[in-house]
Each structure stands twice: as structure tokens, then as C-alpha cells.
């Protein structure tokens, strides 16, 4: 409890310094595992698409005294697992997924038995998809144009490397979310699809906020008094936005999580559950990827640039001079990337990427900060 308090207080005071950029291998392998599991799920189990996409069977019958819940449970017990119930002015209209004829008869029998109708008064028809191919095609087209535009926009607003890293993170998020759908067996309905689109927006949004900070911190890197490698600067930027990232995802996820909870545990099947799952997963993965996938990738791209390579050499030269090592503290934001520090204490829980507790434990290695005048003196 005390430890948690201490951690929270650190976060509150903005005293987080986790070496996120310095361990691309860890994040990449974590993401690779997640991606592999997701793709396996998509191949092995595939997505189960809702009635709106595939078409299905529709039953119409009269049962004036029944309630929606009664009708739904009666039909669901007879076999189908997607049941959409509507009351119409002339009775009930129940849409299910495509059923084999034996199951259709079973539903008719069950409904008839429950509401005291002869089975032939429960009419069954095949219904086509309400969500046309055209809508899907147009949506894909829009998505392609959207990607191109965003890459263009980010290349102008930031640079192409950031655009590329953001795109990688985006695809990463979508694949993992789809994979979770495949494994969980939740229906992919039009609402779910819209959830996917929301994730897309959220994932990009989050990456942009993080990159904006990185851009600011790394602006005049390598000038006098700002001698740090790109990795160190990026890491500091990450730590600066870490609080904001955690807060934002918490705020966005609280309502979604409560809807998912209610939808799954109190209501059973339904559109609420299907939609909120995509958002819940998407926000988690989106936050993780903007911090731990997009940024390390960006740093690796940037470190290849000659000017940052040179900077790296200069920083290294400085650090190896023994005199400096005695005098300076390790820059805030962790150690340079090639020597993995033992104090980062990044407790990355494998299954829950968001629970990256990124706080230094153990003794602090920085000297106490002096007064402003003292600091000025040392700087000269």
C-alpha cells in the first residue's frame, strides 16, 4: 500500500523516469508475440461476422403477451447465438444468423411451444445482408485515402519518419484488436466496425501527442549545453508525456470499461458488448503502441541519420572521459541505450502492456538539486 502511494505520488509529481526507448527489443518481442497470436487467431478461428454482413434467417410470429426478453431467450435456447428481436405492429420479428433447416425447424418448434402457436404460424425466411458490399468497399477506399492523407499531413507537420512510425503503430493496433475478436468469438457487427474506426483515430491521435512532445524536446539537440543523444531526449519526452498518456487513456477507458462490464456480465449477448470490447482493447493497445512501439521505432529511424550518429559519438566520447564520469550525473531519463540500466525497473507484465510501472525504485542516483544560483555557477 505504502509502495503504491509512493508510486502514485511520484507520478503525480511528474517524477517518472523509465527507460522505454532503451529497450526496443523487449517491446518488439512483446508486440511480435501479440501480433503472432492475433494473426493465428484470425487464421485459425477467423472473425465471426454479424447478421448484418452475412444475412441470416428471419422469423415472424404473433405472441401478444410475450416480452422482448422472453422471446430472445426462447429463440436463443433453440440454437442460434445471434438473436435480434424487434416487436412490430403485427407481431414479433426475430433475426438470427443463417441456420441449417433442422435448426430453423427447431426454432419454430420452440417458439410455438413457448407461446402456444402451431409451428406453421412461425414463418421463417432467409434474409440477405443489410450491410452491402458497396458500403464495405467504400469504407476500404475511404480508409486508403485517409492513410495517404494522414501520412502526408504528418510528413508536413512532423516528418516522414514519424508518419511511418505512427502508421506502423496503427496497423499494429488494428491487427491485435481484430485478433482479440477472433479469439473471443465476439460478433463483428457494423457497430464493431465503427469501433475499429474509432480506435484508428485514437491510435493516431495518441501517437501525434507523443511525437509532438518528442519534436519539442529534440528541437535543438546537440547545441551547446544540450549534449544528449536522440534516444535520451526522446526518452525524456516520453516521460514528460507519460502522465498525460496514462491519464488520457484512463479517462477514455473508464466509460467504455463500465459499458463492457455491464454488457458482458449483466446482459449477455448484445450489441453493447460487441462494440465496447473493440474500444476497450483498442484504447489499451493504442496507448501501449504509441509509447512502446511507435516511439522506439522512430528513435531507431532517427539514430540512423548522420547528424544524430555524430551526436551519439560525441556523447559517447564525453562519457568515456573519466573526469566527466566522476563529475556528472547520469542525465535524467535513464542511461544511454547501449548499456541497459539495472534500475529502470520496468515491470512489464506480459499480458497487460499498460501496467508498465515505470518508476525508479531503489536509491536515487542524482545529487540534490541546488539553488538556482548554485546551478548557474556549476554551469559556467
Amino acid at each position, binding site marked *: 500500500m505504502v509502495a503504491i502511494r509512493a508510486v502514485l505520488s511520484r507520478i503525480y509529481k511528474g517524477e517518472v523516469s523509465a527507460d522505454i526507448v532503451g529497450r526496443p527489443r523487449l517491446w518488439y518481442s512483446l508486440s511480435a508475440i501479440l501480433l503472432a497470436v492475433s494473426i493465428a487467431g484470425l487464421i485459425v478461428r477467423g472473425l465471426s461476422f454479424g447478421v448484418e454482413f452475412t444475412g441470416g434467417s428471419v422469423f415472424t410470429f404473433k405472441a401478444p403477451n410475450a416480452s422482448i*426478453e422472453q422471446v430472445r431467450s426462447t429463440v436463443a435456447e433453440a440454437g442460434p447465438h445471434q438473436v435480434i428481436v424487434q416487436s412490430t405492429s403485427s407481431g414479433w420479428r426475430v433475426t438470427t444468423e443463417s441456420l441449417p433447416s433442422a435448426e430453423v425447424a427447431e426454432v419454430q418448434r420452440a417458439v410455438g411451444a413457448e407461446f402456444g402457436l402451431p409451428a406453421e404460424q412461425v414463418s421463417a*425466411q432467409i434474409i440477405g*445482408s443489410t450491410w452491402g458490399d458497396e458500403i464495405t468497399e*467504400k*469504407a476500404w477506399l*475511404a480508409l486508403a485515402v485517409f492513410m495517404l492523407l494522414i501520412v502526408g*499531413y504528418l510528413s508536413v507537420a512532423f516528418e516522414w519518419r514519424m508518419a511511418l512510425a505512427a502508421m506502423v503503430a496503427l496497423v499494429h493496433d488494428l491487427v491485435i484488436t481484430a485478433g482479440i475478436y477472433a479469439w473471443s468469438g465476439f460478433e463483428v457487427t457494423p457497430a464493431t466496425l465503427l469501433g475499429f474506426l474509432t480506435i484508428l483515430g485514437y491510435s*493516431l491521435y495518441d501517437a501525434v501527442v507523443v511525437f509532438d512532445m518528442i519534436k519539442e524536446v529534440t*528541437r535543438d539537440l546537440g547545441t551547446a549545453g544540450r549534449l544528449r543523444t536522440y534516444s535520451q531526449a526522446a526518452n525524456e519526452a516520453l516521460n514528460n508525456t507519460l502522465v498525460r498518456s496514462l491519464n488520457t487513456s484512463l*479517462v477514455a477507458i473508464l466509460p467504455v470499461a463500465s459499458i463492457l462490464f455491464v454488457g458482458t456480465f449483466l446482459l449477455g449477448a448484445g450489441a453493447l458488448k460487441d462494440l465496447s470490447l473493440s474500444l476497450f482493447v483498442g484504447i489499451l493497445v493504442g496507448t501501449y503502441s504509441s509509447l512502446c512501439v511507435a516511439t522506439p521505432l522512430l528513435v531507431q529511424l532517427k539514430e540512423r541519420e548522420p547528424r544524430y550518429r555524430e551526436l551519439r559519438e560525441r556523447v559517447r566520447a564525453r562519457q568515456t572521459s573519466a573526469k566527466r564520469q566522476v563529475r556528472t550525473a547520469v542525465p535524467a531519463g535513464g542511461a544511454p541505450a547501449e548499456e541497459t540500466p539495472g534500475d529502470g525497473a520496468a515491470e512489464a507484465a506480459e499480458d497487460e502492456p499498460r501496467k508498465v510501472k515505470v518508476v525508479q525504485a531503489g536509491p536515487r542516483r542524482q545529487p540534490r538539486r541546488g539553488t538556482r544560483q548554485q546551478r548557474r555557477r556549476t554551469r559556467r
Partner: protein
Amino acid sequence: MAPPSTPSRPGRTILLLFAVLAALTGVMFLQGQTTPKLALDLAGGTTVTLTAVTENGQSPPEAQLQQAVNIIRDRVNGLGVSEAEVAPQGDDHIVVQVPGTGDQRRVVDLIGTTAQLQFRQVYASAGIAPQTARPSPSAGSTGSTGSPGPSATSSPSPSQGASSPTPTASASARQRPLSQALAAPSPSASASGSPSPSGSPSPSASAPLDLNALTQDYSGIDDKAVIAQFEKLDCSGAGRKAPGADDPRRKWVAACDREGEVKYILGPVRVEGRQIADATAVPPNVQNGQTGWSVSLEFESQGARQFAELTADAYGEYQANGMSPRRQIAIVLDGQVVSAPQITEGPIAGGQATINGPPDSFTQQYATDLANVLDYGALPLKFERSSIETVSSTLGSDQLEKGMLAGAIGLVLVVAYSLLYYRGLGLVSVASLAVAAGITYLSVVLLGHEDTLGFRLSLAHVIGLIVSIGIAADSFIVYFERLRDELREGRPLRPSVETAWRRARRTILVADAVMFIGAAVLYALAIGGVKGFAFAIGLTTLIDVVVVFCFTKPMVALLARREFFAKGHRWSGLDPARLRRTRPAPSLVKEA
């Protein structure tokens, strides 16, 4: 988006925002609709079942049914962003579910019309005395002229010759002034046997009376059956269809006009609706005598050629004999003649035509719907409406209630968390969220009105809006974190409010631009449900920017003057002692 650059006048910005909000609220009450319109999954609507009618009574081919579904879907989506569901059911039904109950006649008409458009030359025509004298001086039709040349404008300039030649005898009350430059068939009383397409509206007539039939000139028509049908044809009363009139394969057809005042014998189909590239509704233009709405058509290349040939033929007839019925071209929609302009100005080669009619029937809605159905083409099948029913929501009320409850719980948690974390500032963010929610509500209600967009809220929208609340909250969080960073550096509060804002502003704008680009692209390119959703996201992104610029930041600036915040009270969320780091802060770049 010009940010309010008046750090000294934050109060004014907030007042302005609330004035705008009050104005919007006023508009909302004026519209008389104070709740958002809901989509099918939340509120149910109307189900229309269409049954395909085939000549042999067999089920239509599956491909044709599917094609009809696609066309109907396009038409319904053409009405706006109120997503309807269209699906084939069984072998020969199409089920259309549209949100909203009550008078759905417009939608029902729209999905039911086959919308088969044909252009045929008129070979004979006769006016009919209406059985009931209707007050509308109709049956006039202005000419369709195309602007020669490839200009894509749609400025119909009806230019006709004079009206029919022998306005004699019974001074009809329905005689129109010539200044209206209306084409024949104008209902002038012509008791002569001239082959003019004119009706004799004798108000006393109680039965259809055809004065012209005896001396009708049937030259060029080589189908006796059609002539017989024409002579027997009773078109009185609007909306009558002559049997077989909509069959494109028939060389000769007898047809009625929409108003039920003129009947025609028409020649072969010369141009088909399939050749239309684009149809748009054009508002009235009094300057050139366009008193009603009209629909401007643009043909594809082949259609333009065919139309030019057709008009050339009609013009040739006009030159040979100014009274020949063949100087007219009938525009036939689903077997009814919508208008029959005469070609007196020469052939029309621009690939453009205009359909228009009397203003009392060519309303804005009629023209818009007609343009819509023509745009998406004719249905491959004829349909009958077998039933119209109201349906309940697809989601089920239990789901909706519990979902709302869950969302509310989530929002309460958000409020609690932001108050816990940001203390006094949390109040600002909660107030900002409340303002954002208020603007969102107002916008959704205003845009839900039929005169605007007909936007309807669906479950996906609601959840999308909840997520975008999180994204809106992010703007505040970005700003507050920057502000706290400044304070940690040990700077005084009031200048920090401005410097932090300058830095946060850029982040907020860039990030929101990404969201907005995404929403705009999806809205422009996608259709159906995706379009409506993109609209909702784009809207909330804009609202987020407005709120953070016009409310959150001015609010913080105002509060910064209060002692509670300026002195950094421990509950203000700006307490330097609580924020103070125990290690050197990373020296961030200071903005110049």
C-alpha cells in the same frame, strides 16, 4: 481557427461562447424539437416490405433482386445520414427499415418508384377535360433547353414560341398569361379541329370529353392497337397510368401525363434513363421564368448524342409544321409523361436537359427526390408494397437502459478521477466537459432536424461520442500537465498560464487535425453507417477545439487571478509544494 489572443480578457471569450450557446438553444426551441432523433437500433422505425412483381409470376433472378437492393439503398442513403437498412428477404421480397415513425410516405414513395426514365417523341396528343376542376393551372410544361457547349451549368432558359394558335371561344378561367411563355399543351380552349395539343377545359364537363379524337392526325403511327387504346384511354385524375406505357420495348405507347390532363401517343424510346450521368435539383429562377423547381440532367456521351438526334428530329418537325405534335419530346417517368417540351429553338447538343413542371407539383422535395432516383438509376424490377409496419428498436430497451447507466457510471468515475488528480483544476475540466456535452447535445438536436441533415443518433454514435469525450478530456489534460510542468520549474502562475497554453495549443491543434482529417475523409467517401459515424466524430473534434479555446483556457486564466489558485492552495491542484520535484527537472526549451 483564430485563437482568442486576449489573455487579458478571458471573461469576454467565455461570455461570447455562452451567448452563442444561448442563441443555439433559442434556435432549437424555435425548431420545436428538443430531443435528438434516434436511429433504428435505438428507437425503431418503419418497415416497408416490397414484393417484386414479375410478368410470369415466378421469382425474379437473385442478381436482379440484389441489384434492386443496392439501388434502393443508394436512394435512401441519398436522403441524408439517417441510416436505413435494406435487405433482400426470401425469394422476392425486399425489406426496408427506416428510422422514425409517423408519416414515412416520402421514403416509401422514394423506395417504391421504379424510376424508369425514357425520352420519346410525341406523335399525337389530346387534352382531356378534367373531371374535377382543380385550381391548379397545370399541364403546362416548359421547354427543356440545354446550353449548347460543354458547360456543365444547369441554367434552364426556357424559351418557347407562342402558345397555341387559336385561343377562341370559351374564355377559360385557367387560361394562363402568355408572359409565362409556356409551351403547349397549354389548356387553351380550342374548339377547332386543329391538331393542336390542347385541351378544352370546360368546367361543366363531368365526363372525359375528347374533342380532338375525331380529327386526330395519326400520320406516321403504324400500330392500330395503340391508336385504339389511345382513343379509349381515360387519363382524367392525376396519377393514372396507361397500361404498357412504361415498357421500353414497345415501339408505340399510349400514355397519360402526371396531372391527368393530356394523353399522348409516343414513338419509340430514343434516350433511356441509363444514359444519365448526373441529375440535380435546381431551385426556381424567376428571372428566366422558372417559377418552380426543376431537375437538370446531364447525359453521358452516348446519351448526349441520342438526345441531340432526338431534338434535331423534333426541331425538323417544328420547322416543317409549327403545329405538329412531333415537335414535342415526352419525358416519361415510370409510364407517365412528366413533361413534353416542344423543341422550337433548334437541336440541343450540349448533353443537358431539364425536367420541369408546374410549381405546385414541382416542389423542392419532389425535385430533390426525383433527382435522387434518377441519379441512382431505375430498378430492374417492379415492386409492390406488401406491408408497412412500425418496428421496435433492434437493440432492445433493456440493452439501451443498462448501456446508458453504464456510460453514466463511467462518466462519474471520470469526474471523480479528474477531481482527485487535478483538485481545483479538475473542476475546470469537469465544467469544460459539461460545456462540450451541452454543445454536442445542441448540435445533434439541430442537425437531426429534417431541414438540416436529418442526423440520427445510433448506438455506435453514442459510444463514439463517449470515446470522443475522452479525447476532449485529453486536450485539458495536455494543457494542465504543461501548466504543472511550468510550475514545477518554479515559475509564477499567471505567466505560466500563457506559456503553457502556447505550448499545449500546438499539440491540441495538430492532434485534433489528425482526427478531423480522418472524419472528413470518411464522411466524403464512405456511405451508409460509416458516413454518419464519421460525421459524429468530426463534429465532436470541432466542438473539442471550440471548448478548449473558448472555455477551458479562459477559465484557467480567470481562476489564476483568484487567490485560491494563485497562492497555490493545497486543494487547487496547483500547489507548488505538492508538485515540486525532488530532483532536477529536465530543462525544457523555453519558447521565445
